[in-house]
């Protein structure tokens, strides 16, 4: 008798799976798929390296448990996967819309700001260079991920920044500033 589960990827994408056990084997079927996949997950030694066999095809992955799920690194991505009992689609939580329509440009790595090429109020095009950050002896251009108006630039040239620190906040071109 198969059990149904919901796997939520990166707090955004819900996919349901059926799981059944047959003669000590675990078989899994993804929603909208016909075929059952025979899967086996084993930890390699005491590391967080795991071997996932899908129909006898091996894949290595790096997995860290968390409550109700796991962080799974495969390829260059780390996916945050939450696993729960299946719920009907109406109750699924959709991905959150970006709060207030603001878009944040954050530091992709630790480094220091070499040059700031935008000021609050500037209208910027998608792909336009906003600032230059130096890390590992390299100057890197940070570009606007979308068109917009610069809302704030809470950093200045010469300043050191941590990874993920807010560098530039953008709002959509047509939205007016708050207040």
């Amino acid at each position, binding site marked *: 008798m198969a059990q149904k589960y919901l796997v939520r990827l990166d707090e955004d994408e819900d996919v349901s799976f059926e799981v059944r056990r047959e003669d000590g084997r675990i078989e899994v079927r993804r929603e909208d798929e016909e075929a059952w996949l025979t899967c*086996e997950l084993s*930890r390699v030694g005491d590391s967080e*390296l795991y071997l*996932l066999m899908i129909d006898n095809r091996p894949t290595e992955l790096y997995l860290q448990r968390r409550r109700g799920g796991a962080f799974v690194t*495969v390829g260059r991505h780390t996916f945050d996967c939450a696993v729960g009992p299946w719920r009907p689609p109406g109750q699924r939580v959709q991905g959150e819309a970006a709060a207030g329509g603001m878009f944040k440009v954050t530091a992709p790595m630790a480094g220091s700001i070499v040059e700031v090429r935008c000021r609050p109020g500037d209208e910027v095009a998608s792909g336009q260079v906003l600032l230059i950050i130096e890390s590992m002896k390299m100057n890197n251009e940070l570009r606007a991920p979308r068109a917009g108006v610069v809302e704030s630039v809470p950093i200045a040239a010469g300043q050191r920044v941590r990874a993920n620190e807010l560098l530039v906040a953008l709002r959509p071109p047509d939205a007016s500033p708050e207040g």
Partner: protein
Amino acid sequence: MFKKVLVANRGEIALRIVRALRDLDIHSVAVYSDVDRLSQHVRYADEAHNIGPANARLSYLDGDKIIATALACGADAIHPGYGFLAENADFAEAVEKAGLTFIGPSPASMRALGDKIAARAMAISANLPVVPGSPEVTSITDAIAIAEQIGFPVMVKAAAGGGGRGIRIVQNAGEFANAAERCMQEAQAAFGNATIYIEKHLSFVRHIEVQVIGDKHGNIVAVGERECSIQRRHQKIIEECPSIAVTPELRRKLSRDAVRIARAANYHNVGTVEFLLTATGEYYFLEMNTRLQVEHPVTELTTGTDLVKDQILVAFGQELPYDETELLTRGWAIECRIVAEDPFNGFLPSVGKIVLAREPAGPGIRVESALYDGIEVTPDYDSLLAKVTAWGRTRDGAIMRMRRALAEFRVVGVATNIPYLQEILGMDDFKSGNFDTGFLDRHQVSAVEGLEQQKLVAQLASLLMVTSGDSAERGAASNGNGNGVLNGHGSQKASAWRERMSGAALSQGAGRWPRSI
């Protein structure tokens, strides 16, 4: 022979030198900054000294501190590796003045060749072909006049530069002033010297370099060429030995020219003479690098030499153990530089903790790396993580082995350029050897990732992890650390066994376990 040698570097090259010293039965001394305390070059050395904070200027670039450390620990010599102090003639001179041996060329040779303009003059007098270009300029109006005389397109370069920094290609007179100004600024910031020079920009050229090594008895040998045309933004990322573009006749000419300029500079130790090779077979002297190169392993694999060991021997005063006629090249070697840069995100440097590193191995593969599980990649140093070199009887064989090796390489925690390298190795023009230094700038090589399959793997793995039964959950709860076998059968037994054994280890002491450390 030297009794004790200090290695004034870090990362893979420091480890490479420590290994060469061990092969020679010489006591090795590592130096390290605060963040490199646990590095492999420290752990594998016979002795190690902290020389300061992460900031290289206060540690790996602090020549006085390094010399003082060498004197205090009784070293006879200092090996600088590449980068940091390797091409600093003042440092080399200070080392010699302190009564130690600098494992590299003489300060005079370094000065003569390190100044690109003087090196060019030396090349001309040694009868080497050079690219049409200018002497040093500090004024933009002078520079424009020269550029017009040479004819556009031209390259603007920093006179004190290296590693491709500051270089700009200018297509016409209108763009020139702005480019020259920025080059000067960058040169001032990076090297403390705003002087630039101008060179004719040649299109469709290959970067071919010749390895030379000389001893202190006047013997200088050319040890084959390297093909370094695969560059991204003037940074080499794939190198080969030999080059598919070099015929035996051309190889003889390049080797003779390389030896001639080395002789003109009164050169000893290892050095590299760089040439540009045009599509029609003309070549020009570019510069001579007065140090061991990052890409030296490809030469070692095809010639069977150990350049690091040999440079220690000749620095001590021994004669070169071979001459040119005794060197036999065999097969083909390719090196890929693995760097912490994200090809899916504009090649931004990626920093953080590498939680898992598994290097490739197997037939024909050599890995130069100082990676270990838990290493922190910091913004303080350059982004080179490892070098993978593949050897094959043929070029195709070496490429296939390299593709296999890159597929085996696992790095978790920072982004690397491995997917990008894999794409390049699979391109028809790369496989047929049809490329020049502009290859990567012209071809928008994009790394492929197979996101949907990766998502499925992540979903299945987390599903199995969470639903693998109560036994796995209990096991995880009891040791807080996950569990061995996760899919039901045998997991309870396994965790019971683990608990019993770990209890035994605790009560009886870890000393009872057989170990090979």
